[in-house]
């Protein structure tokens, strides 16, 4: 294998690690760690397995059919089902674009002391510039590499010199702490599922495969990215929980700001750690802002059959380009209404969890379509994990909105 190939593999995997984390994780994992310790770490086992399965499937579908899974789904399941999934995922992803922009602004606020609202236009402008000028691949790679700085959270766990047996027993205790109710515990389980099993990760691998013009021989690269990258991303998520637990649990602190997500890293590793964490938060939210923005406008473009993606000149994909600009401006405007982005994040990940079965099912059906997929159709393992993941996501989806209301977004 040539060195440039190894380089490409590594970059892809590294991107998947940071790509796992976005504002949803930064908020939900820290909140969970502060209130429940590692008692919800088991959720990450399911979410990593599920997202690995479906990201691989989406990528494989895109490699074989040269078209994204959801676009194929419209033909298979009919416009009614596809429209419901589209509207639902647009609402959620739209909320997330705003929250990710806010995440970028929070990182800049933490770095400079200037209020995050002042940074929203800057964040939107940066996203706009990158979207407008940088090639897809370069974008992915740069924020993928920068996202690795999030590993500082893992280092921070180590540096805090925790009682490992305490951490282990916390992770093995599958019930709420004495002060918390089952409703809140299950609500946060749902929120974690929504934050970690993000549909736009599927989109990322599916459209990435098309933009890179991958062929069946490239599947090994796809699988390496997915099967190594995502579990490491899962470890990152648990590390965010762990540092929050170690620093905040006994003090009785609940996390309500991204600054508080980063604070344990400062306690563990000092200024350097804090600075690296801030860079990491900036990188992952910036990358996620681009991804959610693209996922939204790609979904719309594919539904209506427009030309999309990095088409040159841009005027040849005028509808797609305009839609992306409108979505970005809309998200920035929404952020400037001063609605709390943390609340929006929690609502978005909960609604995302509620919609998961509707987004997974079409992908599973297309993956199993032998006429379309030929020898690349789903194997037994893929189907087994997929069916289990869908069953799991159905339970989560059914609980999502009721728990959101019952626990008042986890504030009870």
């Amino acid at each position, binding site marked *: 294998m040539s060195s440039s190939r190894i380089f490409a593999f590594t970059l892809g995997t590294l991107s998947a690690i940071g790509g796992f984390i976005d504002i949803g994780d930064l908020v939900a994992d820290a909140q969970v760690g502060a209130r429940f310790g590692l008692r919800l770490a088991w959720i990450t086992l399911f979410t990593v397995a599920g997202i690995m399965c479906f990201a691989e499937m989406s990528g494989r579908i895109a490699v074989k059919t040269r078209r994204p899974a959801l676009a194929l789904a419209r033909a298979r399941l009919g416009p009614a089902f596809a429209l419901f999934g589209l509207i639902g995922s647009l609402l959620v992803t739209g909320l997330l674009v705003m929250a990710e922009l806010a995440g970028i602004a929070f990182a800049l606020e933490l770095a400079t002391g200037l209020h995050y609202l002042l940074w929203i236009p800057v964040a939107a402008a940066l996203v706009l510039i990158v979207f407008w000028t940088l090639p897809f691949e370069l974008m992915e790679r740069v924020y993928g590499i920068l996202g690795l700085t999030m590993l500082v959270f893992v280092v921070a766990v180590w540096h805090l010199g925790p009682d490992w047996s305490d951490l282990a027993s916390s992770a093995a205790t599958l019930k709420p702490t004495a002060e918390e109710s089952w409703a809140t515990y299950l609500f946060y389980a749902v929120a974690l599922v929504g934050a970690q099993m993000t549909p736009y990760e599927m989109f990322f691998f599916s459209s990435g495969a098309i933009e890179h013009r991958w062929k069946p021989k490239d599947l090994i690269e796809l699988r390496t990215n997915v099967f190594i990258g995502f579990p490491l991303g899962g470890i990152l998520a648990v590390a965010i929980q762990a540092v929050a637990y170690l620093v905040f649990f006994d003090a009785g602190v609940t996390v309500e700001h991204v600054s508080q997500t980063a604070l344990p890293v400062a306690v563990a590793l000092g200024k350097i750690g804090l600075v690296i964490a801030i860079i990491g938060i900036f990188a992952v939210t910036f990358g996620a802002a681009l991804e959610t923005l693209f996922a939204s406008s790609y979904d719309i473009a594919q539904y209506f*059959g427009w030309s*999309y993606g990095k088409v040159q*000149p841009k005027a*040849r994909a005028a509808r797609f380009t305009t839609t992306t600009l409108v979505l970005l401006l809309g998200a920035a405007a929404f952020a400037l209404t001063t609605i709390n982005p943390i609340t929006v994040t929690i609502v978005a990940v909960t609604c995302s969890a509620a919609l998961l079965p509707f987004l997974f099912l079409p992908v599973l059906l297309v993956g199993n379509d032998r006429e379309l997929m030929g020898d690349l159709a789903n194997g037994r393992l893929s189907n087994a994990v997929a069916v289990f993941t869908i069953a799991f996501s159905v339970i989560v989806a059914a609980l999502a909105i009721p728990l959101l209301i019952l626990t008042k977004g986890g504030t009870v």
Partner: protein
Amino acid sequence: MSREVSARIALLDNQIVDGDEIPIGRVDDLELDVPERGAPRVVSILTGSQALGERIGGAVGRAIATVSTRLRDSSSARPTQIEANLIEDLEPLVKLRAPLRELPDVAALERWLAIHIVERLPGGGDADL
């Protein structure tokens, strides 16, 4: 299921690409000629938000359809039609014989946005429509 209905279902929502293989829209509706014997024949393809809006129906459909009629110069109230003689292929994608610039009635929104917005932005390029 009647042959007309099954033929419509197979072709509906398919991607349409122009002569340069650039996606321009979807098959939002069809006009078919179904003879007593023999295969149904596609008379024309209806595409665009007006066709889609009329197919969806109701308040939402009317809203979608209105966007389209506002932008098209043609005063006709009919949805955008692509006659059969412009269609090169129907499977796997609907491919047209001509590039979009030679189809002034099709993809009005694309044309309008390209000319009035994207081409005017730095780096927007020239759509050549």
